[in-house]
């Protein structure tokens, strides 16, 4: 069951501090990378929710994010809806689509579940790719960011937008933990551990799975709306299965089913991608080897490894201490 350990709190605090520092000090491209990380964080939180706590390894979360992005763009630019209203509708639509996919796929398990979600994701991708209404493979432009000038905030400034995304990510993280700590989330964990028993106890397990998949869709939809606003342009590539595959890699790299781990994974993945991308166009090779090494090490990703190595000791020490943990203490211990 999900719970916050001192190590998790500490890592969250470090990540939040690092993000804030980056947001206030970085140049233009540094901010772009930060925003990219923040949006990826939301997507992998959505994925970890279903994959790490419900055993539903989805290859359609990229497509769900794309549905959110396209719905927002279409409602805001084509239908001329107020951006906030468009965002709300886009998130609701994404959640509904996710719920339906979850409900249909809930009966399948393992590789069949993966393939079923892949099928739905690719259907959405093909549809958008060939749809003249949404600009086909050329994509759609002219997407505006939220207008917060009424309260003195200009989101067209990269720094402000980065901080806005950070705030949204914080809210999304709290939402995800709230789901996991609810009766629904607890039951989901039960379903992952033993679906047969949950049924025998009287639980509609497909409903649990579909509901959480729908909730995960809300997060993916939010990520989509922000992704569309960030680039101010969207193209069908956003829905392709490789985006979902990459998100899955990030979740595993960070630590499946830890919620904090995928955030670490997102930072590691994006930084690695950009760093290597500067040096070589063959950065996939390095990512592939790192991925193999992480999985072969049998640790549950970077964060899972840290938790296994330092988690227990640190938790004990911090439990003994009467003070609340400070980041310095944690770094010195690590």
């Amino acid at each position, binding site marked *: 069951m999900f719970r916050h350990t001192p190590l998790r709190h500490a890592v969250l605090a470090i990540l939040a501090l690092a993000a804030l520092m*980056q947001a206030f000090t*970085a*140049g*233009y*491209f*540094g901010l*772009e*990378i*930060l925003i*990219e990380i923040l949006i990826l964080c939301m997507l992998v939180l959505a994925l970890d929710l279903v994959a790490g706590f419900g055993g539903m390894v989805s290859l359609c979360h990229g497509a769900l994010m794309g549905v959110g992005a396209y719905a927002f763009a279409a409602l805001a630019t084509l239908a001329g809806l107020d951006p906030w209203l468009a965002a709300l509708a886009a998130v609701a639509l994404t959640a509904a689509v996710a719920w339906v996919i979850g409900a249909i796929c809930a009966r399948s398990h393992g590789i069949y579940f993966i393939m079923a979600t892949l099928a739905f994701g690719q259907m959405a991708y*093909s549809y958008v*790719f*060939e749809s003249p209404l949404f*600009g*086909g*493979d*050329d*994509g759609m*432009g*002219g997407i505006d960011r939220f207008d917060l000038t009424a309260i003195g905030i200009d989101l067209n400034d990269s720094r402000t937008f980065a901080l806005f995304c950070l705030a949204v990510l914080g809210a999304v993280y709290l939402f995800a933990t709230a789901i996991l700590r609810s009766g629904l989330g607890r039951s989901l964990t039960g379903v992952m551990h033993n679906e047969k028993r949950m049924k025998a106890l009287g639980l509609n397990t497909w409903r649990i799975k579909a509901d959480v998949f729908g909730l995960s869709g809300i997060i993916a939809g939010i990520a989509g709306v922000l*992704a569309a606003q960030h*680039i*101010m*342009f*969207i*193209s069908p*590539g*956003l829905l392709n299965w490789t985006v979902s595959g990459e998100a899955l890699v990030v979740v595993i790299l960070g630590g499946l089913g830890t919620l904090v781990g995928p955030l670490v994974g997102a930072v590691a993945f994006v*930084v690695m991608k*950009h*760093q290597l*991308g*500067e*040096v070589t*166009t063959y950065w*996939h090779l390095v990512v592939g080897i790192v991925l193999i090494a992480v999985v072969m090490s049998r640790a549950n990703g970077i964060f899972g490894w840290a938790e296994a190595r330092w988690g227990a000791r640190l938790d004990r020490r911090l439990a003994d201490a009467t003070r609340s943990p400070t980041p310095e203490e944690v770094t010195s211990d690590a």
Partner: protein
Amino acid sequence: MKRATMATLAAATTLALPAAADTVDIGILLPFSGVYASLGNEIEAGFALGLETYGNDLDVEIILHREDTEVTPATGLARTRKLILQDDVDAIVGIVSSGVLGAVRDLVDGAGVPLIVANAGNDAATGEDCSPWITRVSFSNGQVNRPMGRWMAEQGIETVYTLAPDYAAGRQMIEGFAGAFTEAGGTILGSDFTPFQQTQDFGPYIAQAQASGADALFVFYAGGEAISFVNQYASFGAAEDLPLYGSGFLTSQLYVNAQGASAEGVITALHYVPTLDNPENAAFVAAFAAANGRLPSEYAVQGYDAARALTEALATGARDRETLGAALRQVSFTGPRGALAIDPATNNIVQPIYVYETVTGPEGMTQEVLAALPAEADPVNGCVMPSLPTN
């Protein structure tokens, strides 16, 4: 993350010139990974050769900032923002896919940064979406195919079946051809658009075209799809009943060696083939082959001419965004493709189109030019060209 930024700056390469008085920052925006990586590399090779050939006499230091657009418009846009906002470039060169061009159009137009398009052929970019800041030295999708429609009708071909991948460029290429062909009296018996980058087996479509009873088949394919298509077409042995014509990208110099004998007899039209007989081209082909060990393709010449256009503009004394933008619109020169000029109404290049047949030569496949169709400017297509703010 700070190190990422520093690495980016370090990656900006300098073309060091002695005692340079001025510097200009040029962004190179090309795909270096993903399915278009080979095109990006080819254009870059041509661009490098162009700078080497024409850039040495200039009293200016050119600093290049190289960015990988991958294949995604979103990435392309993000990289363009970086070039404009962080690297503060004076001009941008490149862009392979029309999707990326569409994505960055508003940004470069709004920011007032001159963009030299070295490939993307999207008709709208020099049509309804035209911008005084965007100058295209490559081609437009309609431009390379319209003359072929008329030419084929003149050859006595009455009915045609068309095939192309189902995406914007594919549809525009076919539209350009079909419009001119029907205007000249021909009939399109049928058109299929194959799922882009998902179709590997063209057999069903080729069979469909054969069943239509058309006089000829006109197609547009590029990259791996071009190789697959030509090979599969040849294996069906349809050449006698249904000869293959196409947009010249189908049998580009880049792929003819992979297509081998399958490409024999295929007739296509394009703005460049390496066998063009003129002194500029002879010099270019020799220099390119010496540097890269292979013959240049149309992509290479587009990079080469992009560098030429840039250096011509610099030679007028232009050094910043405004002056470069104004100067780029007025360049005209005779290059490997023949006499080139920029159409002031659309900022698109005006160039001759060559009809050529792929034939077996002494060293593999080569191109035999059948006709040089005169240069003509694209229709304005709804382009309302505002004058540059400084003018």
